[in-house]
């Protein structure tokens, strides 16, 4: 299933005047959902728009479904769906009218009425695009990206500014696309979005990919996790350490408060609790603090993601 790359970016450089937006970026996306995660200004949109054929690389190569997005645009465009970060619709057009129009540009479009229903766009009625709410505009843009039954869709910040319900609807649709074999490249600066949706996450900062992998891999790799519990003071920490894997540390941080740092997984938790059982210790307030993508990002870049 995850065989041929759908997107292959090598050593991409893109400058706007004196500003370097993308600085030697490498990215391979395979079938499934790939999240491009990074703070504002990291180069996410520039990268995606280069894949969509809007930008010519200053250097480096970009291949989408094996094609050059600029020179082989005519062959590529029918196979790819695009959701821009904003706009893209005639200000006087109605939602259903615009969606039907985009459907007409394709040979085997989805059932437009069903898609309207699915994304809750039926309530837009005869309202012109410019008077739709931000969330309705976003969902219309998403519908326009998928209506042509593409192999691959690019979604640029698909849930930015959406309320939780609309966000859920968008996530569900992305899940269905994935199940039906449509590949998705989405940019986001929401950690939970990347964690929930993506098979693969590429973390971008300052125009480069600084880490890539599944959300689980990223959270595991490098990042230390913590397990805490309370018990009677003065437990034999050295004996506990012997029971734990080699790269784990354990310490009594305050009388009766214990901290284990290492790769926290179910096995480690079981080891700690069975050691406690053997020593007649009731581990009160046992808790684990697993690293989220947010922590990983902070460690990698020294930056808060949402700032």
């Amino acid at each position, binding site marked *: 299933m995850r065989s041929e790359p759908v997107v292959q970016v090598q050593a991409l450089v893109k400058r706007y005047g004196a500003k370097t937006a993308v600085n030697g970026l490498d990215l391979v996306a395979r079938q499934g959902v790939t999240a491009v995660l990074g703070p504002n200004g990291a180069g996410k949109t520039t990268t995606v728009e280069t894949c969509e054929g809007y930008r010519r690389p200053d250097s480096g190569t970009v291949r989408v479904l094996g094609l050059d997005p600029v020179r082989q645009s005519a062959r590529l465009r029918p196979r790819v769906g695009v959701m821009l970060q904003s706009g893209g619709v005639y200000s006087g057009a109605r939602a259903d009218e615009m969606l039907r129009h985009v459907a007409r540009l394709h040979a085997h479009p989805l059932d437009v009425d069903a898609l309207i229903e699915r994304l809750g766009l039926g309530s837009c009625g005869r309202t012109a695009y410019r008077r739709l709410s931000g969330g309705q505009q976003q969902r219309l843009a998403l519908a326009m990206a998928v209506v042509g*039954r593409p192999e691959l869709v690019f979604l640029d910040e698909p849930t930015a500014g959406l309320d939780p319900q609309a966000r859920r609807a968008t996530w569900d649709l992305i899940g269905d696309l994935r199940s039906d074999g449509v590949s998705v490249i989405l940019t986001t600066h929401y950690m939970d979005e990347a964690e929930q949706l993506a098979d693969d996450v590429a973390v971008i900062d300052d125009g480069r990919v600084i880490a890539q992998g599944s959300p689980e891999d990223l959270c595991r790799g490098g990042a230390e996790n913590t397990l805490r519990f309370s018990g009677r003071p003065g437990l034999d920490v050295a004996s506990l350490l012997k029971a734990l894997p080699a790269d784990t540390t354990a310490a009594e941080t305050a009388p009766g408060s214990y901290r284990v740092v290492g790769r926290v997984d179910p096995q480690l938790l079981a080891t700690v609790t069975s050691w406690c059982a053997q020593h007649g210790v009731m581990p009160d307030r046992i808790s684990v603090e697993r690293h989220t993508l947010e922590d990983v990002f902070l460690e990698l870049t020294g930056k808060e993601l949402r700032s």
Partner: protein
Amino acid sequence: MTATGIYSPKPGAAPLSRMIAAQAVLETKMLLRNGEQLLLTVIIPTLLLVLFGTVDVVDTGDGEAVDFLAPGILALAVMSTAFTGQAIATGFERRYGVLKRLAASPLPRWGLMTAKTLSVLVTEVLQVTLVTVIALALGWDPQGDPFSVFLLLVLGTAAFSGLGLLMAGTLKAEATLAAANLVFLLLLVGGGVVVPLDRFPEAAQDVLGLLPISALSEGLRDVLQHGAGMPWGNLGILAAWAVAGLAAAGAFFRWE
């Protein structure tokens, strides 16, 4: 989540002719739905024709006023749609990412431009019909060869489209809106539409006569009012504007 097959990929572009037709229909609908555009393309030309045709505001020279006015109003109709209307609409489409989004669709860019041209032509047919009916009701007695008229209208459309797209593709949308309206007003007054060119000082006449609007209104007048043969001079001026405008638009048009 289980696969439903609803979204399973089945990509493909629609046939080119169907894409262009769909685009032209949508463009025309958007134009006819827009109040400002209708004011510009329908109401102003009609009002001017009725007003100047029934009330003696400007001295239009010998003969019936409507015989002088109708060709000028036809020229104005072409300018309002191909230049002003198209410039403003395209400028805002560019601003709101419509051109950008369509550039990612299966419709090729030249197909979009073809559709825009078709939409302009459809609108012009409606305008010409309306102006002709009103002018005939006011007693218009058109002369000359319809083919010369057709040629003038087509070259005029090409000239104004090039200039309108050049403006829309290079200036900001607000600047296009302001400039296109200003140019419309100036050319309405100084382009022989309702005010005969010979009312201006002679030195000015030579310059004004080279404007696309003057070439179109004077050319139409030569044929429709005076029954002249093929107006080569004015056709030449329009052709020159068309080539220059479309070439510049092709070179400098920015899609975003």
